[in-house]
């Protein structure tokens, strides 16, 4: 573990200025610490040895007042700006981390790393604050105050300086030794923390299900066990981490004691004067103070460093390079999937396997096939969210990988199986179509036309029935994931939004799931309305009713990859 990871300066810009500030305050503190010790000794010694009066020591006392005030000011400034810098560094890293995780695609986050990234972004990175606010300044003080005070002690009494100089190298040696022992345990602790977070959350999220089976009491033991595992693993780390603290305190306090005893005995023999002796007594603990503080904040900051390193590891995963060419206009260009195959992680299956089909403008294409054949995965490939292991997608002859994602996706509206609506009102979910949707409901120009169109579309999709049950109608607030609306109701909102939008390609993943036969008719009418408007529709369909409205039906198949199988040729069959 490096005490200061250069990647921190590379990834977190606000950290750079902070290092400069810390260096400046560290240098000032070093000068003031030395001055304070010399002035206390200068004021004290004449009084103790010859009973000098207050007027005799007025000079050093005046200077002492100035030093005390200056030290407080430097301390306050350091503290005030440390918090600001820490908040900005954490903010900066968090934004980068979440953005990168989002860009790394659905497969990356489905493998469990998504949950980890959320824990890391919302909690783990906060551990950087103690590192930046407490640990880093002490690190700088260790390279300013410690040598400066040691030099002054050397000038005052070389034997004391020798004792201190002999013990100081032991401090970092022990710290490195103990640090190496702690590092692996600390990383384990972070892993345990994340696992505990994910598993407790999983159990709480599943509580309604557990309660439905009357099994809610069993997992309490599991939660307790998780807690005990956490306690055990943390205490294991702490026993070692605190050991480093103990060694440090033992070394530093004992050598201060030895310096005091040594100076005392040499005073008796007149080998050293009282004033330097007092100065050495005050300075000796100050030499060790930064090292001791490093020890105190060591284990707290270690979590911060480990969290930061995990963040850097994610930030160093490069997302697949995005294309730059503008996407062809989907009103005219054909989309072709050519032998697309995606390996399902950990399942020994390629789903879809050898999928070949053409999506022509203005047609309804249905993807059919048994559950788990890879229909949704095929959609992810089509959307450019997933790069297939074999085969590829081309648009109007251009490979999808060469096309700028934004220009591709602005022509697409996608309704996934589990519809997620943006938090806000239903109106904003319908109208807030983002940077490339039609500004249909912004109420500015042609506001009444837009409302009229919304009413027509809502009647078509059955959203008007949903709105009737909501007291606030269009202005009902829906939360993260559309809390308060059933899955089917959410789907109607999303379908209405798609109909109101202007995207040429509309991708519907099981749009009639969660709907009864009557509302299914509404969806089918909506799909037809989309085609009538000249738009292209790709459907993932189970129900024959949906397949029936399709112009082209594509069968998606999977194949096992564990056993060698015959080459998948013409696996996808296109009927017209």
């Amino acid at each position, binding site marked *: 573990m490096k005490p200061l990871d250069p990647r921190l300066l590379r990834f977190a810009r606000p950290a750079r200025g902070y290092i400069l500030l810390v260096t400046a305050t560290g240098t000032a503190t070093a000068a003031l610490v030395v001055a*304070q010790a010399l002035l206390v000794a200068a*004021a004290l010694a004449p*009084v*103790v040895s010859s*009973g000098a009066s207050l007027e005799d020591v007025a000079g050093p006392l005046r200077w002492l007042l100035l030093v005390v005030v200056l*030290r407080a000011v430097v301390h*306050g400034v350091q503290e*005030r700006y440390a*918090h*600001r810098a820490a*908040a*900005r560094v954490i*903010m900066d890293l*968090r934004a980068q981390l979440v953005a990168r995780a989002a860009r790394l695609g659905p497969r990356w986050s489905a493998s469990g790393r998504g949950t980890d*990234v959320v*824990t890391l972004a919302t909690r783990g990175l906060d551990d950087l604050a103690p590192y930046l606010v407490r640990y880093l300044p002490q690190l700088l003080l260790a390279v300013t105050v410690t040598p400066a005070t040691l030099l002054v002690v050397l000038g005052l009494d070389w034997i004391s300086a020798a004792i201190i100089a002999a013990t100081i190298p032991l401090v970092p040696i022990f710290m490195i030794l103990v640090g190496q022992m702690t590092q692996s345990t600390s990383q384990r602790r972070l892993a345990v923390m994340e696992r505990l*977070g994910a*598993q407790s959350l999983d159990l*709480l999220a*599943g*509580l*309604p*299900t557990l309660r439905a*089976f009357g*099994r809610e009491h069993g997992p309490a033991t599991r939660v*307790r066990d998780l*807690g*005990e595992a*956490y306690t055990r693993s943390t205490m294991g780390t702490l026993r070692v981490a*605190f050991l480093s*603290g*103990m060694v440090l*305190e033992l070394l530093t306090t004992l050598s201060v004691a030895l310096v*005091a005893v040594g100076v*005392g*005995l040499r*005073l*008796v023999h007149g080998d050293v004067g*009282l004033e330097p*002796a007092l100065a050495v007594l005050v300075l000796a603990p100050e030499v060790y103070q930064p090292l001791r503080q490093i020890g105190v904040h060591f284990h707290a900051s270690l979590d911060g460093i480990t969290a930061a390193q995990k963040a850097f590891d994610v930030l160093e995963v490069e997302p697949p390079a995005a294309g730059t060419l503008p996407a062809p206009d989907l009103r005219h260009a054909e989309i072709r999937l050519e032998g697309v195959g995606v390996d399902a992680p950990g399942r*020994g299956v390629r789903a879809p396997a050898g999928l070949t089909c053409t999506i022509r403008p203005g047609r309804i294409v249905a993807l059919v096939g*048994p*559950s*788990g054949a890879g*229909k949704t995965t095929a959609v992810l490939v089509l*959307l450019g969210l997933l790069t297939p292991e074999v085969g590829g997608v081309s648009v109007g002859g251009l490979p999808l990988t060469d096309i700028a994602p934004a220009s591709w996706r602005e022509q*697409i509206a996608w309704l996934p199986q589990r519809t997620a609506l*943006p938090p806000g009102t239903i109106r904003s979910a319908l109208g807030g179509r*983002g*940077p490339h949707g039609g500004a249909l409901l912004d109420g500015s120009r042609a506001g009444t036309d837009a409302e009229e169109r919304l009413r027509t579309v809502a009647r078509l999709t059955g959203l008007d*029935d949903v709105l009737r049950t909501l007291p606030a109608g269009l202005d009902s607030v829906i939360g993260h994931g559309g*809390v308060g609306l059933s899955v*089917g109701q959410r789907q109607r909102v999303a379908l209405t939004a798609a109909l109101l939008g202007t995207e040429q390609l509309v991708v519907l993943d099981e749009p009639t*799931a969660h709907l009864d*036969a009557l*509302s299914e008719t509404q969806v089918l009418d909506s799909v037809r309305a989309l085609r009538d408007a000249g738009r292209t529709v790709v459907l993932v369909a189970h*129900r*024959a009713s949906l397949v029936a409205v399709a112009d082209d039906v594509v069968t998606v198949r999977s194949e*096992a990859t*564990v056993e060698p199988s015959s080459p998948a040729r013409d696996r996808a069959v296109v009927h017209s």
Partner: protein
Amino acid sequence: MRQDPLWRAVALLGVSWRRAALAVLLGVLALGSAIALAAVSAWLIARASQMPPVLTLSVATVAVRTFGISRGVLRYLERLASHTIALRGMATLRTRIYESLAVGRLESVASLRRGDLLARVGADVDSVGDVVVRGLLPAAVAAVLAVASTLLVGTLHPGAAAALALCLVLAGVVAPWLAAVGARSTEADGSAARADMASLAQEIVDDAAVLTVSGHLDERLAALRAADRRLAASTDRGARTSGVASALGNLAVGAAVLGALLLAVPAVASGTLAPVELAVVVLTPLAAFEALQVLPAAAIQISRSRQAAIRVVALLDSADTHPASLADAPTPVAVDDGEHEGHLVASALTCGWPGREPVVSDLHLTVHPGQAVAVVGPSGTGKTTLLMTLAGLLPPVDGTLLLDGTPLGSLPRATVAATAALTTEDAHVFDTSVLENLRVARGTTTEDEAAAALSLAGLDAWLAALPDGVHTQLGPDARTVSGGERRRLLVARALCSAAPVLLVDEPGEHLDPATADALVTDLLALRDSTEPRGLVLATHRLSALRTVDEIIVLDAGGVLARGTHDALLATCTAYRVSVEAESTQDPAAPSPTTVPCSRTT
């Protein structure tokens, strides 16, 4: 004090006060060693400068070395003691939260947002635990030591002791108070921003694909940065106060030394204070302030933990309010042997979520093992709410609900769950193995039983492709499982239940029509097995319901019609229209009994 959420939450940690007292004692002895070391070495140096016989210093030299050793060792023991207390307390609190949510109101669990939930159980519990180690124990140690060092200096020079006491109050009370004020303003300003930040981060990572395609990703990332900027701004405002607090704490140390010099030097000149004692009076304060160094952080911790405690206590309180009919049940909980036949009778039943309009009213329903009832109707007519009421998860708004003649609400929850097991549409798939997911229904499910249930649910091919069979891990939120597989896994789970009555919400969802109908037919076959089950199915697919004993058609707020499939076809227009709509949309399946040719394998 008992009402203070912090104390309520700390009490929930179940801390043993004997252990806490031991930790404080160890802390006092450890930091007391440091003060004693400073006082004795000051005396030693000053006395030595008078060049006395070396022998007169021997006690002091031994004492100095001893204090040099004891400090580190005692501090180590103190830290182990205090951290053990806190970590054990946190484990206890976490378990208590789970336990109370497990028996409390369903809505309090169901309505919590995931990001927020994570923040609550994780960070808040940690924060309440931290208050012991970083707040309460150090404060107790510092208080004891501050009094002790003031008394020590006071025996030598009362004036210097008064100055020291003043500076100790400045560093130990004023500075921490200011630091806490700064931190509190940060927390108060920042808590909303922090919650926004957490739920936005969760949303962006969860819904990354949807946001990317819809073009909302950059906008959500900007919202995250905005929430984070608000969070940073609140930190910045609080940092001004904590900067002042930090400066004051530092000033107090220098002021104590300066004050001691100004007051005690004339005392030496006037002969009321020995020169050697002056060194002790001036140099001891430097060490005495060490115990106070942690107090600003302690005060911040206490104020931060109080905010966390408020949330923890609120969460517990919200879960603690039992549904009215369960808490206020006039009859005492019936003595129950746990074995029930599963004769479920609802009369004039009205159901709905507490605090909302009832969705179904005046419903009569009877089901017993060997019988199947289907509840059909458009989305949003309350099919799921009805099933949750029948499962005893929601209290009936009105009417009676009897299980083998006893009101459902007066039976122990475990008995009801063992008799009527519900599988909801959005049931959770846990981040564990396939087998453990099935064992949610019944803990004793064997591997063979699991395989049989999966096969019955049409998952044998899926199971065969899994690398570790039923021991394959499914991953968080089962996102590697397709929608249809997830659906069937939930049905397989229902099949593993030993309950005589199964309540299944939308078993055929996400499946192609033929598979969906086959699955419903398989479920219906459970009526006639050696251990006959009673079934209540909520569905909006009607083709497979020909053999169901009774179909209840729900429409906005109540029962529209009821009867067998054939009777309803004859009498209920809406039902007939729906069935016809289903079959005309299924040209490949003109009749529900014919296996359509579109069935792909």
